[in-house]
Structures are given as C-alpha cells and as structure tokens.
C-alpha cells in the first residue's frame, strides 16, 4: 500500500460526490487521474483491503430490520453452529469473541418483523438460544479507519 492508496482510504470513507464524472472529481482532489483512481479502487477491492465501494444504508430508514445477537456455544460444537449461522443471508457480520457468550453477529433484514423469524430459525436449526440485543439508542456511528 503506497501513499496514494492510503490517501484514497483516508479521504474516501464518505463524501463521494454525486455528479456525472465523480471519479474524475475525486481524482483531481487527490492529485491523480481518473484512470489511476479506478485502477487503484479495483485493486484494493480485489486484494480485500476494501469490502465494498458504494453506499452504506440506514436500515431503519430503509424500512429494514437490524440487530446484534449473541449465542453461547460449547467449543466442541462451535464450527457446526458457525456454518449454520453464516448460511443465513441475513447475517451480515459474525465474530467469535472471548466470553461465555462467544458468538456475536449482526442481522440485517428487509423488514423489522423478519428479525424475529430469522432468530427463531437459527434457534431451531442450531438448538441454542439466541439473545437479541437490538439498539435502543445510538451515540455514535463513525466507523472510520486511518490507513
């Protein structure tokens, strides 16, 4: 990763312009060309530094459901349960964490009602309880990383 890659990552985590030639506009701000910017974005996506280039939606405003859920899985059964949970397309992120509640995942669904259905389906398919930890109040969402 060189200085231009870092500049792209640090300056483009928001604020992408909506105009007819947006990459050209961004490239000139970063002191490069449109072709070079497109090539770099493609490479950063290809090598997995970026998971996506595009919009991030607000679930509730879109009419969708979003929640954090946790499960307590015995270590010997963890791999089996991970495979089942991750097979649900509604599971956006899933992390193993160091706690008795050792599996934490985010569910995103097209409707809020669908959250309960997916949780019930995960409980049925895995045989373990799912603890639903929906957001009650948001103090900050500023997921930004300096490269």
């Amino acid at each position, binding site marked *: 990763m060189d200085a231009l890659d870092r500049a792209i*990552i640090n300056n*483009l*985590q*928001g*604020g*992408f312009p*909506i*105009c*007819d030639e*947006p*990459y050209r506009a961004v490239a000139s701000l970063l002191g490069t060309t*449109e072709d070079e910017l*497109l090539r770099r974005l*493609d490479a*950063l*996506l290809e090598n*997995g530094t*970026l*998971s*996506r*280039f*595009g*919009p*991030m*939606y*607000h*679930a509730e*405003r*879109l*009419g969708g459901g979003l929640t*954090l859920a946790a499960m307590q899985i015995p270590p010997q059964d963890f791999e089996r349960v*991970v495979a089942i949970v*991750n*097979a649900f*397309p509604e*599971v*956006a*992120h*899933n*992390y193993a*964490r*160091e*706690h008795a*509640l050792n599996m*934490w*995942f985010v569910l995103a669904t*097209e409707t809020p009602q669908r959250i309960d259905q997916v949780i019930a389906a995960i409980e049925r398919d895995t045989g373990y309880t799912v*603890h639903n*930890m*929906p*957001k*009650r*109040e*948001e*103090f*900050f*969402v500023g*997921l*930004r990383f300096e*490269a």
Partner: protein
Amino acid sequence: MDMSLALQTDRTPLLLDEADRHLLAAIQSGLPLVSRPFAEIGARLGLSEADVMARLQQLQACGVIRRFGVVVRHHEVGYGANAMVVWDVPDEQVRELGRCLAEFDFITLCYRRPRHLPQWRYNLYCMIHGKTREDVMSNLEWMVNRCGLQGLPHEVLFSRRRFKQRGAVYFAEPQAAGSVREG
C-alpha cells in the same frame, strides 16, 4: 413497543418508490468503476443519469444513504485488534456516559442495548479498534479515567475470529462467506 420513543423519527421508514428501491438494490454491492457510473446504473434500470443522481442526492439528504464511499476491512489496514467493551451503567446515566465515550476517536460505534438478566447485565456498548490488544487496553484505560467510569462493571470482549464481514444486504442477492483470524 420498546422504550425508545425518542428514536421514533430515526426509526420511521421513509416512503420509497419502486424506482428508488431498484436503484438502492442495484448499487448495494458497489458502484460501477467506470467514468460515468450513474449513467451506467441508469441504463440498467431505464432511468436517465440525471434522474439517478437526483434520486441519490435525495436519498442521501433524507438519511437513507448514511454515507457513500469506500468500506474498509479494518484488519487489512492494520487494525488487528478489536474489542467490544460492554458496561453496566445505571439507566439514568447511560446517555451522559454514552456521549462521553462517543467523543474519543478510537471509538467507532457506541450504542445502548437491552440487558438480558440474569445472564447479561450490560446496557452500554462501544467498539474499540486498535493495531494491537495493548493499544486497545491503553485506550480503554484512558477513556475510563476521562469519563469517570472507574468502578463501573464492564467486560472487554476481544474478537478471536471474523467469519463474515460483508455488510448488510437489504435486497436479496447471492452471498459469499469466509473466515479470518484476528489478533
């Protein structure tokens, strides 16, 4: 009905028309890497470039689109450690402490969530990302002192493995899955 009446407006879905939904679905996995991406999206959907841009500006202005840009895999840019830190805070202090935590630039998410008694007493969550676990712990200590959190029950849940990090998908599409070990 939960207790989050204060969030009523935040949770109210906006009325989107069919074309908006098609547009949001068309770009949810990424914007085309071509000189005129909005023209290309429009061509796929039977909309003009100007119409696509006007709709996206509107969707951004009303908050359906939170932000527009690169979505970084934190592990790949050197943030090898991430911890979810959870606190058991008296209900009447949650808002004040939540706002205090949210001030620090190493905090990337901060939410109030319900307790699940007796198993789970915690009601305030924040996420700390750092290059190493030591970074995360020293940031935590700094934050505890600055916000006066000494003595409040809390736990630090470091991540061990990441199984999936593909972002939310609100419109059905094929999926991919993977696993990455974390520090």
